[in-house]
């Protein structure tokens, strides 16, 4: 048994589990693109079970924030000033976890990760009645484009609800972002939950 545990795992295996299921138990939606499956766009209907656990939001838009197109995980998106952007994302469950996501943001800003204690000690703002950690970061931002953006800043908060999570993240040139600190917090606190999706 110990030898088996130490042996190299197989690189070719036969599927041993076969299940015969009544077609009535499998509601398969039409083919979706990856963008639709991962919630970046919503032209196809989602699986009813997973959609039913999401929440819908309303908010008050601060002055000077220009709404941008949204869809899927992006519940709201705004252009601020010349190069800053604020995105409200909804994810199922904890979206990977509070600590992991805050440290992912720090990684994007080229900063060292925070310890669990430091994350627990972050200042809180109330989003939907939940005390949610609020972060401010400055540094060189490297987003998914892979292009480093020096002298950028990030404001963010993560609100963990019983079955979903709300991520609010404002990124852009440091001077533009930090001038929006008050507006950002007011915006986060203005979020309200609407009737749940059917």
């Amino acid at each position, binding site marked *: 048994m110990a030898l088996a545990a130490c042996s190299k*795992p197989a*690189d070719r295996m036969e599927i041993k589990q076969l299940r*015969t*299921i*009544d077609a009535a138990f499998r509601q398969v939606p039409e083919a979706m693109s*990856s963008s639709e499956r991962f919630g970046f766009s919503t032209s196809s209907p989602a699986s009813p079970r997973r959609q039913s656990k999401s*929440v819908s939001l309303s908010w008050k838009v601060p002055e000077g924030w220009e709404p941008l197109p949204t869809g899927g995980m992006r519940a709201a998106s705004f252009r601020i000033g010349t190069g800053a952007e604020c995105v409200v994302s909804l994810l199922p469950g904890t979206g*990977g976890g509070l600590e992991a996501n805050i440290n992912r943001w720090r990684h994007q800003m080229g900063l060292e990760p925070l310890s669990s204690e430091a994350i627990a000690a972050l200042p809180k703002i109330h989003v939907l009645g939940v005390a949610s950690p609020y972060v401010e970061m400055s540094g060189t931002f490297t987003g998914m484009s892979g292009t480093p953006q020096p002298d950028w800043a990030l404001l963010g908060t993560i609100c963990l609800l019983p079955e979903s999570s709300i991520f609010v993240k404002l990124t852009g040139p440091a001077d533009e972002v930090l001038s929006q600190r008050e507006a950002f917090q007011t915006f986060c606190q203005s979020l309200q939950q609407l009737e749940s999706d059917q």
Partner: protein
Amino acid sequence: MKKVLQAVFQVLASSALACVLLILLMAVTFVGTLEQVDLGIYEVKRRYFESLITVHWFFNKVPVPLPGVYLLTFLAGVNLVCGGLVRIKKGISQWGVVVAHAAVVILLVGGWVKHEYGEEGYMTLHEAEVSNEFETPLDWEIAIWKKDAAPITEYVIPHRDFAHASQDHPVTFQHPDLPLDIQVTAFFPNCLPQPAGAQTDVPSADGFILQPISEKTKLEEQIPGAVVQLQPKNATAVNVGLLWGAQRGPWVVRSNDETWVVDFRRQRRLLPFAIRLDKFTRELHPRTNLPRAFSSDITRIENGEEFPAKISMNEPLRHKGYTLYQASWGPQNAPEGTRLFSTLAVSYDPAERLPLYSCVVLTAGLVFHFGWMLYRRLRRIAEENAS
């Protein structure tokens, strides 16, 4: 040799060992309970309660090896058998004690059977929905089936078979009846899908990548993902797709003029019967949104026959070793009129009745023991009075 064996038996049968084991059980349970705050319930179960030995970091600085609860309960069972059943004097005055010890051994055996052969999971249903499956809370699976087939034959790859897959060590899965091979070229225990952007060093599909994130997240909060390739056996065209635990629907793909569905989901188990949720009832405290009670009117469907039942908070449905409890419901804080779903916790325990039998045997043993003691006392008093 015989003396050594006798010495070992004396230790295993000793009440001192019983005391040490009980103290260690208390200590491991205590530190394990505290660790749940940081590690989450499932990781703590794995490390402290289902292990032979574990290392606990006191104050996150001092590593201290501790026996796991699995080992401790095994030794407690051996101690009970050696001390409470084998070595104990077998006179009538000890029969009750022997029976009580046997009852505790039955309880331990029941716990072991449940741990080894039991299953736990959840079933979520909207009203009028029917299902004969429940999802386990931790493990995942990849399932592939041909769309529009009836009935559907799902080819299922369990978590343990692809959890080690990586770009350096892809794993290919095949079946004689499946006209394509599935290769898992990467698996990420916790990740988020992101637009691929300019990144070229990670596998991408359809303009997306899976971005790994810290594994320090609690086990139950992690959302894994996998990169898979579908390779038809009689063609060279390969389809590459990303699977993610919170995806909004399965990957539906055309391969060799057939449409296939590839789903990535919590590992599912089949029930020997189906459950239809007829009605979910939620009662709120007056003028609040706080639930006072909630229950599910269900129908158990088995061999074409229907058996209505009600599952509420303290009244589970028990059938064929399965117990279905009312666990939760949602969406939370939903206003009146919202279509609600009911979540039932499903527990399968082949030794479900053993705790009951153990209690009966224990009660019989203790009643006999104390009854015998009372009888002896009364007889002595009578003898003293007579003399």
